């Protein structure tokens, strides 16, 4: 079994037309995906979108109905779970309650390697140091806080230097502050060890901060895969636009196509311009105009600038978030959200007439999906 432990170079994982059904429910619907060696890939999607099922297929807990999974080019369909050389952090950690922290972390070494107990001890302490949890070796899991259990789970997953690390919403049970700290630490660990990480979350902020590659899933399908920047700035459809950060999606139809922009007649009666930017649409297509709330400016007086849209509306809701001010403005019957940073001293009330503007270049045209 010792032969299974390769030096810690991450596996390149290829998922090829993978499909898994439970009865009549299609949990994973023929997805294909390339995960480069050593990368940090996040499966992002709402609950029930097939993230866990995908992870369980990679782990070998489930076998696919169709399609295949390859590690470094080799199909692993017939490789049982325990020989796949994977580490995994479970959502509820799944620490062995009858073993101490030391034995939990030592477990993969005992199963996979022929290290002497002194060598194993060194490795266990090293790994516990990596997750900053020295001094707790003799404790049992239930004597630890949630955050500490999380660290033990990380150490156990990493200790045998697996070529692939799977994490299923590992921070879901932690409070916000701890979660943010752990995001940072997990990212640091990833950078320092170079193993391939496949991370699952339904939290878009988490996905954006940590990932090299984000795979947005919905109803068992991949909606879009790309870098955080690509997904945020050039989403391909409404679902991705909406799931990654708040989005204003103004419904309308393409009125005219110019060389560098579309003119879109927004329902409610105003017309805006949107950059063309590789989107294929023709006059008459039903579309949505994506405008990020943080791109939206709000002013009490009309201030038309070149290269910006400006429409009049009425404030319908005001929310104070501390670091920003969140407004909802009704423009010709359509609600537009704005998130104003540095809003100190800016006082605005519900019912007030305002002018809403955004740079034309920041808007994006999305074909309205029929789903």
């Amino acid at each position: 079994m010792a032969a299974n432990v390769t030096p810690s170079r991450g596996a390149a994982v290829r998922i090829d037309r993978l499909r898994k059904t439970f009865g009549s429910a299609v949990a994973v619907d023929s997805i294909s995906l390339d995960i480069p060696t050593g990368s940090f890939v996040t499966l992002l999607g709402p609950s029930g979108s097939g993230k866990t099922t995908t992870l369980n297929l990679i782990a070998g807990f489930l076998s696919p109905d169709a399609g295949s999974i390859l590690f470094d080019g080799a199909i692993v369909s017939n490789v049982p779970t325990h020989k796949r050389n994977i580490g995994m952090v479970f959502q509820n950690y799944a620490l062995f309650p009858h073993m101490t922290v030391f034995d939990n972390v030592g477990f993969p070494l005992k199963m996979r390697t022929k290290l002497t107990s002194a060598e194993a001890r060194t490795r266990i302490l090293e790994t516990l140091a990596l997750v900053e949890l020295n001094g707790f070796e003799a404790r049992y899991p239930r004597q630890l806080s949630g955050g500490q259990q999380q660290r033990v789970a990380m150490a156990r997953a990493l200790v045998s230097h697996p070529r692939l690390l799977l994490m299923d919403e590992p921070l879901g049970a932690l409070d916000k502050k701890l979660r943010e700290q752990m995001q940072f630490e997990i990212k640091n660990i990833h950078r320092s060890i170079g193993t391939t990480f496949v991370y699952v979350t339904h939290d878009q902020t988490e996905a954006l901060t940590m990932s090299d590659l984000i795979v947005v899933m919905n109803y068992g399908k991949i909606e879009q895969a790309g870098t955080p920047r690509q997904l945020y700035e050039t989403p391909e459809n409404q679902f991705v636009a909406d799931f990654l950060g708040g989005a204003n999606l103004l419904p309308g139809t393409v009125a005219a196509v110019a060389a560098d922009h579309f003119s879109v007649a927004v329902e409610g009666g105003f017309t805006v311009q949107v950059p063309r930017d590789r989107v294929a649409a023709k006059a008459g297509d039903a579309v949505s105009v994506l405008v990020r709330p943080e791109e939206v400016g709000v002013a009490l007086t009309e201030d038309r600038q070149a290269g910006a849209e400006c429409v009049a509306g009425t404030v319908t809701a005001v929310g104070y978030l501390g670091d920003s001010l969140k407004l909802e403005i009704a423009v010709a019957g359509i609600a537009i959200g704005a998130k104003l940073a540095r809003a100190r001293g800016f006082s605005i009330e519900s019912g007030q007439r305002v002018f809403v503007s955004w740079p034309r270049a920041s808007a994006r045209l999305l074909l309205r999906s029929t789903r």
Partner: protein
Amino acid sequence: MTVPVADPAPARMSLNRALVPALLLGPTLLWIFFFFLWPLGLMVWQSFIVKDAFSLDHYASLFTTPIYARALWTTFEISIICTVGSLILGYPVAYYLVVGDARIRAVVMILVIIPYWLDYIVRSFSWLILFGRRGLVNRFLIDIGLITEPLQLLYNLGSVLVGMIQIMLPLMILTLFGAMLRINRQLVAAAEIHGASPWRAFWSVFFPLSLPGVYAAFLLVFIISLGFYITPALLGSPKETMISQIIMLVATELFDWPLASAAGVLLLAVTIAVVIAYNRAFSIERLWGGKEA
């Protein structure tokens, strides 16, 4: 400062607080007192009385008359073997009921539960039909020519154990099953993904986690076995006489109620001692770092 206001609510609340438990528990407590504790007390009292005076004579005769001491020993011996046997046979079945294929699982569950519903006298009698000199087993063995004379399958330790294990098996299986259901199966998955083959994952994770259930089921089955009466009486020889049979014999044939009481008290005392010692040895709270979170 708040102004004190007469408020009838707390008084009514505290009345309810006293009345509700009394109403809920009262009938049962009365029942237990009059039909269990009271006669039990009388029995204990009787066992210490000889000619209206306190005495340990009954206990002395229990320990000095070989037949009684032997029955007590036999009782323990048979109960231990019966419990270990049920555990060995029951554990794999309970495990299958937790992890196996859903459809087969349902069938197995029914097969386990049906005998549980049958009266154990009926179940003991059924072995007479099966194991008798002209029973099904002997006839079958003669028919296929393996033997010419019927075997003595009844009235020995083996037949008593077969009968008792058959009766205790459903209880053993269901108790283990209940405990195994509570084991988080994701832990087994965690063991496998971290390098344990299914076999090693079972022994390093599932089995140790099932031990509290094993301890509980073992104790339950053992204590019930101690009180067996009908099965050894029907399927055993005098060599397999258990303490309950002795108590019955002394009470109804010899009419020595005080001696029967003493034997009963002794069985009770030994049982309680076993429970206490057992709980000390296998205290779940001491395992794995304290109480369940």
